[in-house]
């Protein structure tokens, strides 16, 4: 099976290409990147063909699937063109930057009969799955609430440019946790209230966000989406989900399987993960969905519903009141 990476604008592309290389029946044979210097050097490093224009790449008959890692606002065109070219698609999160284009992406991929998966690797974490099984077995009784974080360091670059990212920290960091909560509860968000602002860095987008979600079944949650980890923080960030239920509480810290490295060469401390590689598990699942022609584990619709909460959060900040879902286009 042959694949291609469309754009390395999102740094996750590097991890995905490494993961794909570990799957014996898969070959990454081409990449496309607007940035010619970056693209050429990546192509030679991974021994692939290079295209400046992804439309040219999509003409290659030998490519079965693509991984879309462009800036959020460019996902739509790439996904639609890839579907039209008959390629299966793994698309970086968030699915896009508005409801209308997300719906178009879902429709087009359906129409052309290609697989379309959104890159939510946290779904594949064995830690997160263990709790999913416990919930499904009813071990906690009735669930009451979730207190969640997806923190990061301020990423800079296009992430702080609203025209490319569709927002800032809230757009970047609402969706992973939202996807897990929807999956855990089998239920959609009904109300979103948010506070967001630019408080920590001198950037044009929001860098802090507190997103409160009430689900249709009354369960409530907050997600702290802030880029609030200091530059000196020993790891990039976190995904933490603290659940409170009738029969107990669970604290999930997805990235808390680390070694601490005290490094005199850089005079810094870092936390280096040894846990399961979720990107690898996710990519493997995508490939087996293609191979066995079975539904992907994380759909375009999942991507849409998670992004909708981020969009509702921005709307709520504007209105200073709770916003009811679903949003209109």
């Amino acid at each position: 099976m042959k694949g291609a990476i469309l754009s390395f604008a999102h740094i996750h592309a590097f991890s995905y290409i490494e993961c794909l290389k570990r799957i014996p029946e898969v070959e990454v044979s081409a990449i496309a990147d607007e940035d010619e210097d970056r693209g050429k050097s990546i192509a030679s490093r991974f021994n692939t063909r290079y295209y400046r224009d992804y439309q040219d790449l999509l003409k290659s008959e030998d490519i079965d699937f693509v991984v879309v890692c462009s800036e959020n606002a460019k996902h739509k065109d790439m996904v639609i063109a890839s579907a039209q070219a008959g390629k299966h698609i793994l698309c970086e999160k968030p699915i896009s930057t508005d409801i209308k284009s997300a719906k178009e992406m879902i429709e087009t991929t359906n129409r052309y009969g290609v697989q379309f998966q959104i890159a939510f690797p946290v779904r594949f974490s064995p830690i997160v799955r263990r709790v999913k099984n416990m919930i499904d077995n009813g071990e906690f009784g009735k669930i009451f609430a979730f207190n969640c974080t997806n923190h990061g360091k301020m990423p800079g670059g296009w992430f702080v440019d609203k025209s490319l990212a569709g927002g800032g920290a809230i757009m970047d960091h609402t969706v992973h946790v939202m996807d897990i909560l929807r999956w855990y509860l089998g239920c959609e968000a009904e109300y979103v209230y948010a506070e967001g602002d630019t408080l920590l860095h001198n950037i044009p987008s929001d860098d802090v966000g507190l997103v409160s979600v009430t689900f249709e079944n009354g369960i409530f949650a907050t997600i702290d989406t802030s880029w609030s980890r200091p530059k000196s923080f020993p790891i990039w960030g976190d995904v933490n989900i603290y659940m409170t239920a009738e029969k107990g509480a669970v604290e999930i810290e997805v990235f808390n399987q680390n070694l601490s490295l005290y490094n005199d060469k850089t005079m810094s401390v870092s936390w280096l993960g040894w846990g399961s590689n979720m990107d690898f598990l996710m990519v493997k699942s995508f490939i087996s969905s293609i191979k066995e022609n079975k539904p992907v584990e994380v759909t375009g619709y999942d991507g849409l519903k998670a992004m909708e909460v981020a969009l509702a959060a921005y709307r709520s900040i504007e209105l200073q009141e709770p916003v009811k879902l679903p949003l209109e286009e």
Partner: protein
Amino acid sequence: MLRVGIIGAGGMGKIHADCWSKIKEAKIQVICDIEKDKAESLAKIYNTDTATSSSDVIKRSDIDIVDICTPTPFHADDIILALKSGKHTICEKPIARTLESAKEVIRVAKEVDVKFMTAHVLRFFPEFSTAKNLIDSGAIGIPRMARMKRGGPYPVGKWNDWYSKVEMSGGCLVDTGVHDFDFLRWIFGDAERVYASALTWKNILHKDYGLATIRFKSRAMAQVEITWAHPPKTPMKVGFELIGTEGMLTYDNYSSTPLRIMKEGETFNTFSMESPITEDPYLGEIEHFVSCIKENKEPLITPEDAYRALEIALACIESARTNRPVNVGGEI
């Protein structure tokens, strides 16, 4: 010698009595509880008089200080009576159950010439006061954001199960959250609005839980998690993250445990985590109040501070009830 009358001989009354007994220049004169046996058993330890009515204590002429440790809805009336009777008064948090009664307390406190303090003990916990000092010294740049968590099992086995009655305790966001709200004001100044979700109004017996978002006038924001929903007998959980423009301060009582004890037992083994310190925060709080009386100083926690913390707490449960953000910071 400062002569003290303690009202309420429950959980907090016992802690306060122990602290007063350690203060050289003070003596517990009388311990009062609506339930006679509670007053008597505590009075026996400290060799004091007993009473069953708070007004009997407050009216006594051989009392200089009234210490109120009764359930929340009884605070305001006794504070007002004590202040008007010319007694220095320390009262457990929250200052009152309603803003109207808290306002009345403030009004009276202004008129009298005695000391009054609401016991927001967090300010005397070294992990919190050290954080405050570090922030004041610029350790994290300008403080902009906070995450706070506090809680544990439901407070059961209390007088009349009063914690489970929202009209009495206010639920976890009011009773327990008020600690963090006061601390956050200490760091960020006055709040502007709050939004919260909670189990408080859902009538689940002996479970309460709340999540609050607070926006401050300085634009800073905070997220607060308060739980009374952990399984019985699990240890209390406390933690914070304070984030500024140039760094972050974090604390977590589950990981900040210099002492872990594993003991073999007859029927079951035990494991405990401890963090012993010589400075008891409750004693520190009472020592501070005594020093304010002796040196005629303004107590660290003003009546307005106590009012503002309560205001945020009540706004939280109002928001949880209505699913609307609630503005705070109105005139007192």
